[in-house]
C-alpha cells in the first residue's frame, strides 16, 4: 500500500508472465512501459511549468499573471499549446532544411533523456547506471548542440551570432560545472546518482557549499537564462538562435528551456539537497517523489528569481568570470576536498562533516579577501591622477603662446 508504483509494476509483471510470454520479453515490455510513463509524466510537468513560469514572473513584476482560464489560470498552458499548434510553420529561404528541423527536436529530447537517470524515489530509480554523472554531462551538452544547429541552419545573422555566443558560453561554463560535480562524486565514492542520493545522510550542501554554489551558477549559464542569456539578448539580436522559428518549433525550444531549468533543479536536489530524502521517505517511497519535486521546484524558483532580478552581463565579463574566477576556485575546492577526504577518514562522522564545512568556509573567506584586495587596487588605479592630454590653457593664452 505504501508503494503503489512498484505494486502496479509487480501486478503487470505477473499478468504478462501469466500470458506465457518469455521472461526477456516481459522485461522489455516493463522497461518500455516505465520509459513511456516517466516521459509522459515529465512532459505533463513541462506543460504545467508554462503556467508556473508565467505566474511567478507576474508576481515578480507585480502583476497578476494568467487568471482567466480555469481556477488560477491553470488551463492557460493548454490554450498556449493550441495556439502554437495552429500557427503557420515557416522555413526561411536558404535555411538548411534538415538541420533546421532536427534542432527543435534535439532541444527537447535531450532534456527528456536526462530524466532517465534521476532517482525519483527509493524504489523507483529509472536507470541507476554506474556512470550517471558523466551521462548527465554528456547528454546535457547535446541540448546545446540543438541551439547551435538552430542558429547555424536559420540562414540569419542574428541567429548565427546567438549560436556563437552560446558556444562561447558553454565552452566556458562546462569546465567549472563538471569539476564541481566531482565534489559529490568524491564524497559519495560513486558516479551513480542513485548511490550519491543514498549516501547523503547529511546533505552535501553542508559538506560542499562552494561546489553547490558553483554548480548552480554554471547550471544557469548552461541553461542560457538571464543573467547569462546572451544567446537571445532581445536588445541586441532580437531573439537570437530561434529568431526564424515559428509555431510549435518555437514551442519546442521554449518547452525545452523550461524543462531544462526544472531538470537542473532536480539534479541540484539530487547532488546537493539529498534528492528524494526526507522524513518517512524510506518507509513510504511515494513521498520521495514528492520531496524530490519540492526541492526541484525550489531550485527552479531560485533560478527564476535570479533571472528576473539581475541584468544581462557583457560577454567579456561572462568569459572572465568563468575562466579567471570560477575555474581556479573550483579546482582549488576539489583538491582540498580530495585531500581532506583522505585525512579525515570515513564520511558520516562529526569530525568529517565539520572539517569539510570549515574548509569550505575558509575557502570562501580567502576568496572574498582576495577579491576585496583586487578591487581596492583597481579602484586606486582608476582614481589616480593621470597626465591629461589637453593643455590647461585658455584659448586666448594659447594664441599668445603660439604667436
Amino acid at each position, binding site marked *: 500500500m505504501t508503494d503503489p508504483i512498484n505494486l502496479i509494476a509487480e501486478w503487470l509483471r505477473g499478468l504478462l508472465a501469466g500470458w506465457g510470454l518469455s521472461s526477456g520479453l516481459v522485461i522489455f515490455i516493463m522497461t518500455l512501459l516505465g*520509459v513511456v510513463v516517466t516521459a509522459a509524466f515529465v512532459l505533463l510537468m513541462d506543460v504545467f511549468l508554462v503556467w508556473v513560469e508565467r505566474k511567478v514572473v507576474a508576481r515578480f513584476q507585480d502583476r497578476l499573471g494568467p487568471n482567466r482560464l480555469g481556477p488560477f489560470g491553470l488551463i492557460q498552458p493548454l490554450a498556449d499549446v493550441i495556439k502554437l499548434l495552429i500557427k503557420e510553420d515557416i522555413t526561411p529561404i536558404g535555411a538548411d532544411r534538415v538541420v533546421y528541423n532536427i534542432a527543435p527536436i534535439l532541444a527537447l*529530447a535531450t532534456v527528456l533523456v536526462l530524466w532517465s537517470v534521476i532517482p525519483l524515489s527509493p524504489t523507483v530509480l529509472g536507470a541507476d547506471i554506474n556512470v550517471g554523472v558523466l551521462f548527465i554531462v554528456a547528454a546535457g551538452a547535446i541540448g546545446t548542440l540543438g541551439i547551435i544547429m538552430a542558429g547555424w541552419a536559420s540562414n*540569419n545573422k542574428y541567429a548565427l551570432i546567438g549560436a556563437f555566443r552560446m558556444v562561447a558560453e558553454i565552452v566556458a561554463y562546462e569546465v567549472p560545472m563538471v569539476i564541481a560535480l566531482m565534489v559529490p562524486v568524491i564524497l559519495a565514492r560513486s558516479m551513480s546518482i542513485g548511490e550519491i542520493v543514498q549516501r547523503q545522510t547529511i546533505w552535501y550542501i553542508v559538506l560542499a557549499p562552494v561546489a553547490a554554489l558553483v554548480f548552480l551558477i554554471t547550471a544557469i549559464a548552461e541553461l542560457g537564462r538571464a543573467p547569462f542569456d546572451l544567446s537571445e539578448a532581445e536588445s541586441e539580436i532580437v531573439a537570437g538562435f530561434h529568431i526564424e522559428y515559428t509555431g510549435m518549433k518555437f514551442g519546442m525550444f521554449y518547452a525545452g528551456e523550461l524543462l531544462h531549468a526544472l531538470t537542473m533543479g532536480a539534479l541540484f536536489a539530487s547532488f546537493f539537497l539529498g534528492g528524494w530524502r526526507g522524513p518517512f521517505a524510506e518507509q513510504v517511497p511515494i513521498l520521495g517523489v514528492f520531496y524530490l519535486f519540492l526541492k526541484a521546484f525550489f531550485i527552479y524558483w531560485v533560478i527564476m528569481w535570479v533571472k528576473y532580478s539581475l541584468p544581462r552581463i557583457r560577454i*567579456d565579463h561572462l568569459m572572465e568570470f568563468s575562466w579567471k574566477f570560477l575555474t581556479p576556485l573550483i579546482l582549488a575546492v576539489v583538491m582540498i576536498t580530495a585531500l581532506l577526504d583522505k585525512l579525515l577518514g570515513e564520511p558520516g562522522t562529526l569530525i568529517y562533516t565539520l572539517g569539510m564545512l570549515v574548509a569550505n568556509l575558509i575557502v570562501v573567506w580567502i576568496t572574498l579577501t582576495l577579491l576585496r584586495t583586487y578591487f581596492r587596487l583597481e579602484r586606486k588605479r582608476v582614481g589616480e591622477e593621470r597626465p591629461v592630454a589637453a593643455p590647461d590653457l585658455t584659448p586666448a593664452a594659447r594664441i599668445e603662446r603660439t604667436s
Partner: protein
Amino acid sequence: MQTQDWLFVGIFIVLAPLFPLIALLIPRLIAPRKPNPIKLETYECGMETVGPAWVQFKVQYYIFALIFLVFDIEMVFLYPWAVSLNLLPFYAVVEGIIFVAILVAGLLYAWRNGALKWA
C-alpha cells in the same frame, strides 16, 4: 540489473525524440500553409539582407575552444581518480594535485599572454 538499466536508457534515447516529433507533425495537418517570397525572407527587422548569413567569426572563440579542450581532457582523466579515491594510497592524492597544478600553470600562461581577454 545493470543491463536492464542500460536497456531503460537505450529505450529512453530512442523514444525521447518521438514525443517532440509527434508534436511537430500535428501542425502539418491543422496549421495553414500559405508561403510567399516576402514571408519566407530572412528576418532582419525589416532590412533587406546583405551578403550570406554565414559570416566570419572572431578568432577569440577559437582560442577559448582550445583552452576548453585542454580542460575537457583533464576532467575526463580526473573522474576515475575521484571515484576510486578511497581505494588509492595517499600519494595518489598528491599526484592528482600535481597533475592539476601543471594544468593551472597552463591556464596562468594563457592568462598572462592575454588569451583570456575578450578584445
